[in-house]
């Protein structure tokens, strides 16, 4: 990345002049940078507890150093690969199904000619985002239980009852689909706004060229929101190991552990047994390194292929 800078600068020894030329930009930048310095970088020394037998009382400076022990503990756990696999299955499924659907919703909404109906659908689909996870999972398990409404419909159709919540194969699907159920409207907002930003003259030009609505969507709208899609896609790839524990803890049970137990839930359960902060921090760093690598990788690929990236 440093190379870019050098290339961009007109001549050597003019770096300082170049900086001075942009001083007002730096001034605008300063408050945010200060925020990052104080609230992100100063506390960052806390990450070193991953290499410690950390004691809250002694703090970061006086706790005992244990080198890579916390990392080795995690990596040598016989369940490590199962946890990694489950995490990857759930997040890949989220990526493959969960990523495109909000875009589809935004595109369908864009095709509506009745503005009032459009606003209505937008507002309504965005509402479930505010339901707390506890309540959402409560509704989900009620509907999916053997005497729940879904099995009631199946029974009416003469089909046998399905144990949705206690069959391991179903777990990732139920997890991902219920996330979409709750968040499709919310996730589509960013695309709706991106579509609003597409230059209207492009549509007119396309229309003059005889493009029908399908072609307009394909050749005007989609390219218009491509950079937004790309940015969000890269960011989601950069979260490949971040499957939160909150919802899974509420959803899983002994029958579904084998597909539902992910890295975060394991660390959470272990945290209940013993408050081992060094260990949690080590797992956190492991996740972050993997995620960050994926992010840099996908960003680099994206820059190469499309010329665009996160920065």
């Amino acid at each position, binding site marked *: 990345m440093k190379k870019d800078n050098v290339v961009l600068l007109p001549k050597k020894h003019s770096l300082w002049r170049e900086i001075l030329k942009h001083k007002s*930009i730096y001034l605008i*930048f300063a408050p945010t940078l200060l925020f990052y310095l104080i609230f992100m970088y100063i506390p960052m020394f806390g990450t070193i507890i991953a290499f410690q037998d950390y004691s*809250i009382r002694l703090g970061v400076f006086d706790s005992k150093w244990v080198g890579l022990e916390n990392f080795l503990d995690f990596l040598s756990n016989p369940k490590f690969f199962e946890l990694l696999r489950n995490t990857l299955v759930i997040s890949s499924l989220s990526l493959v199904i969960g990523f495109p659907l909000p875009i589809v919703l935004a595109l369908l909404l864009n095709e*509506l000619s009745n503005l009032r109906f459009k606003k209505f659908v937008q507002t309504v689909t965005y509402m479930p985002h505010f*339901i707390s996870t506890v*309540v959402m999972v409560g509704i989900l398990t009620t509907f999916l239980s053997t005497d729940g409404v879904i099995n009631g419909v199946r029974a009416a159709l003469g089909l046998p009852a399905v144990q949705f919540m206690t069959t391991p194969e179903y777990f990732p699907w139920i997890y991902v689909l219920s996330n979409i159920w709750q968040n499709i409207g919310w996730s589509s907002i960013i695309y709706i*706004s991106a579509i609003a930003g597409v230059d209207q003259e492009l549509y007119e030009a396309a*229309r003059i060229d005889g493009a029908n609505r399908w072609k307009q969507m394909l050749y005007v709208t989609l390219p218009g929101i491509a950079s937004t899609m790309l940015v969000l896609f890269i960011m989601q790839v950069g979260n490949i190991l971040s499957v939160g524990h909150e919802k899974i803890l509420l959803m899983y049970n002994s029958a579904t552990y084998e597909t539902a137990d992910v890295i975060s839930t394991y660390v959470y359960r272990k945290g209940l047994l013993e408050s081992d902060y060094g260990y949690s921090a080590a797992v956190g760093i492991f996740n972050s390194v993997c995620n960050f690598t994926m992010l840099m990788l996908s960003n680099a690929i994206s820059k190469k292929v499309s010329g665009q990236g996160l920065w």
Partner: protein
Amino acid sequence: MKIKKTLGEQIFDVFNVIILLLLTLVVVYPCYYILVASVSNPAAIYQDGGLLLWPKEFGMYSYQTVFENSDLWRSYGNTIFYVVAGTFLSVMLTTSAAFCASRKTLPGKNIIMFLIMFTMYFNGGLIPTYMVVKNLGITDSYFAMIIPTAVSTYNLIITLSYFRGIPESMEEAAKIDGATDFKIFYKVMLPLAKPIIAVIALYYAVAIWNNYYTALIYLSEEKYYPLQSVLRQILLTSSGTEQDAAAISSEADGAAYAANIRYATIVVSTVPILCVYPFIQKYFIKGVMIGAVKG
């Protein structure tokens, strides 16, 4: 400018409306469920396979419990202040940083952005951050809910990507007129970025609105509590998770109406923030960008 639609387009329109109606129905149902369940007998809602179409054994007990709490209205006021002030600050910081990072010629911008991205993945965790906030003296103050969470890197990145999509020609005219960078940012770029500002303002507002964790960590005086903290307290108080002889684990016997109160708190806390959305929506109408430039 009515354009005649082809048959295919008409069929598509019909299907589109049907699909969106169905989606709306499926997606809105949990919200309706919560509304109805909050005024039903909590045991009765599990009859009929859990499908709730109208209240069962109607009662307003849950809302009484929520509204008779004396801290509720003050916390409502606090939350509105946090949301308004916090969103303003956050949007200012985010857009200004995104504007700067979008300057193609800015020396060091790639390093700066890398360092900012880095914090999405590596951070010091709860206690070091708490120490910083504490030593700045802003725990137990109105600032605690606004400043430590002021910038979200995620929002910064989507804003940056938007800024970089704005054609350079838009600002060149201003530059020729001799406008300073401040002016370009304020007069040219911000109006152009209305749709994305609407989005991140919404993201920030909702995040602040829902944030109880920051309050839990940084606030101990109740006069600063936001709505979510008070609602959480009401919920915890009413579920009475500890038991008499058995204060051993959470496998305890909660009070009968805890579930209702949980639904009611969602209703009470969600309705106001839902009302914000229509105001945001007007920035999502097509052509807003062109309008901004021409105006």
